[in-house]
């Protein structure tokens, strides 16, 4: 039992140590490697570990079997990144002549801007931000040039268009990569309403491509919005989003005026609260170097003492990986609470309740219909986007 308890604690700590101190990875025992690989895979940070070790020249000094898993992750990351860059290129090609400002978000933005946050990062979709007025012409143009929407339940389609911050995902008929076209960074129903026009005013150019990326502050704020306003009941808060934030902070800290402008910009966009959480937890969990003065400034958007206590308890439990074989009811509770919080922030109850009821009803119908589709190795690798 004590061993189990030790293992249970170990899972999260192993990964956090690996992220903070990749230098020490060659010292890990075989059992620790076994567990680390599992939790890193689950949090989609295997590629990140590989990139850190490669940068430090330490890949030769870890167990061969672990190196195989990391090599496999590197291969997948490289392929994924090529595919995403290519897809972004194709979208820009399709939009040629439309005179539209396209801004890359998240993974694709980090890649195109050559930021350290892109290294080893397993991105899946191409996320783009465009002005709301042009969303119809963009959608039409993509539909004309071979992109399609997934078959969507009419309820869901209407819901997307009425309330969401993006249109239903598009996918080219010959390629698997999903393209998400956003016109704002949070749903229309959300309590916070950062103004897209403000974001579009401070974008930066990408060399040699007719696409832009968000300014440094906005890039960080968007990553934080993603982290604290979306949650999944299984996964809780995505650790890799916090890793992005820590990377971006570290990278942009060198730019003159970066720290001075961060909090004011967050307040201007109504995002002071997520920034406050982001600074606190990236410092606490990932050792990000946040100046005290900035933290002090961010305090202005801190929640009440009680909420702060609750979040301090919930966030690490919802974010750190747990042992894959040992059920952890505390973590499950924290994840569920964070998921509920995210829903609460995204939607007023008058919308949320009917939405959940519809979802539940359709799930119930589905439960009586679905039978396992055939699955074998040949289908597994070709058709699934391999979201492991």
């Amino acid at each position: 039992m004590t061993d189990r308890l030790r293992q249970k604690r170990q899972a999260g700590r192993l990964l956090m140590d690996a992220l903070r101190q990749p230098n020490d990875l060659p010292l890990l025992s075989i059992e620790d490697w076994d567990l680390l690989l599992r939790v890193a895979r689950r949090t989609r940070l295997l590629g990140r570990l590989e990139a850190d070790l490669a940068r430090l020249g330490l890949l030769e000094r870890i167990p061969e079997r672990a190196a195989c898993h990391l090599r496999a992750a590197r291969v997948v990351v490289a392929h994924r990144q090529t595919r995403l860059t290519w897809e972004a290129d194709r979208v820009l090609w399709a939009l040629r002549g439309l005179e539209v400002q396209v801004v890359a978000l998240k993974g694709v933005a980090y890649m195109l801007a050559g930021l350290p946050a892109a290294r080893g990062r397993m991105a899946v979709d191409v996320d783009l931000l465009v002005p709301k007025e042009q969303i119809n012409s963009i959608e039409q143009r993509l539909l004309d040039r071979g992109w399609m929407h997934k078959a969507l339940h009419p309820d869901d389609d209407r819901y997307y268009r009425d309330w969401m911050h993006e249109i239903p995902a598009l996918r080219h008929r010959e390629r698997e990569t999903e393209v998400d076209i956003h016109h704002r960074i949070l749903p229309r129903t959300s309590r916070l309403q950062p103004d897209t026009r403000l974001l579009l005013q401070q974008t930066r150019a990408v060399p040699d491509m007719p696409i832009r990326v968000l300014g440094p502050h906005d890039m960080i704020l968007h990553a934080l919005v993603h982290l604290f306003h979306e949650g999944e009941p299984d996964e809780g808060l995505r650790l890799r989003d916090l890793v992005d934030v820590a990377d971006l902070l570290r990278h942009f800290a060198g730019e003159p005026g970066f720290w001075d402008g961060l909090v004011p910009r967050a307040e201007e966009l109504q995002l002071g609260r997520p920034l406050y959480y982001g600074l606190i937890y990236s410092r606490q969990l990932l050792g990000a170097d946040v100046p005290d003065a900035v933290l002090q400034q961010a305090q202005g958007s801190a929640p009440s003492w009680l909420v702060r206590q609750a979040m301090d308890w919930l966030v690490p439990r919802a974010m750190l990986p747990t042992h894959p074989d040992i059920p952890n009811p505390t973590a499950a509770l924290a994840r569920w609470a964070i998921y509920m919080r995210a829903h609460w922030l995204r939607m007023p109850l008058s919308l949320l309740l009917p939405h959940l009821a519809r979802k539940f009803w359709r799930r119930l119908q589905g439960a009586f219909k679905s039978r396992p589709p055939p699955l074998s190795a040949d289908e597994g690798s070709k058709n699934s986007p391999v979201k492991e």
Partner: protein
Amino acid sequence: MRTPIKPLAFLLHHFWQDFPLIDEHTIVDCHVAVVKHQIYRRWPKSELLFLVDGRPPTPPYPFAHHFPMLEWGINLCLARRANHLLMLHSAVMERQGLALLLPARPGHGKSTLCVALIHSGWRLFSDEFGLVRPEDGLLLPLPRPMPLKNASIEVIRAFAPQADIGPKFEGTHKGTVAHVRPPTESVQRMDEPARPRWLVFPRWVADAPLRLEPVVKPDAFLMVATNAFNYDILGQTAFDLVGHMVDACDCYTLVYSDLREAMAALDELTDSAHD
């Protein structure tokens, strides 16, 4: 591997008896389990879930299909995780240090040929995955229990009475499936790689006369490339590996309806190469 399912455990003991138990202190490629599905899904039909690291990558299966389900689950894990290797959808066997690959689509009769060959003097590498190591282009063995489908089961019973065939699982999405235990020697030598020497693209066609015909290298290249699970993921590495492999191999297509004839043709092909 963990499971509380008794009939599955029994089959595991039998089919995997030659494999060493893992040491506690080791890195395990896939931690898998087969468990009963949640309580509300057990009625009216009992269902099982395949878990990797505690999560199900596939939907539940009927209880009665426990062993095939495990096999498909492991295939899926490999196909997703082994991207440090080039993965061909191919049966592979070895004789005198040289490997014969049978890349084929499902239903083209590669498993049947594979089982027949490994009961005729060849060592089993794998009936499903041709694993190529990018560092040196060698093939890696993966001698697991091999599934036979439908009519193949009786064909093999007649051809190789010594084959250790397990119970039939009926009504799976691939029809009736029964497994053949990998020969002890193949399991004992599962760490010895081999060099690819022959590429034969088999295809079983009812009542067809036997045809063994050479394939020109460019065609063979395309056939191997499109047969790989992760050709696109490996990119340049895969291009180079397939190129070297096709260069180093004699390449043929084999159309057959009679297993004995096919075996004789393969024997002749691989024997003459030694002269």
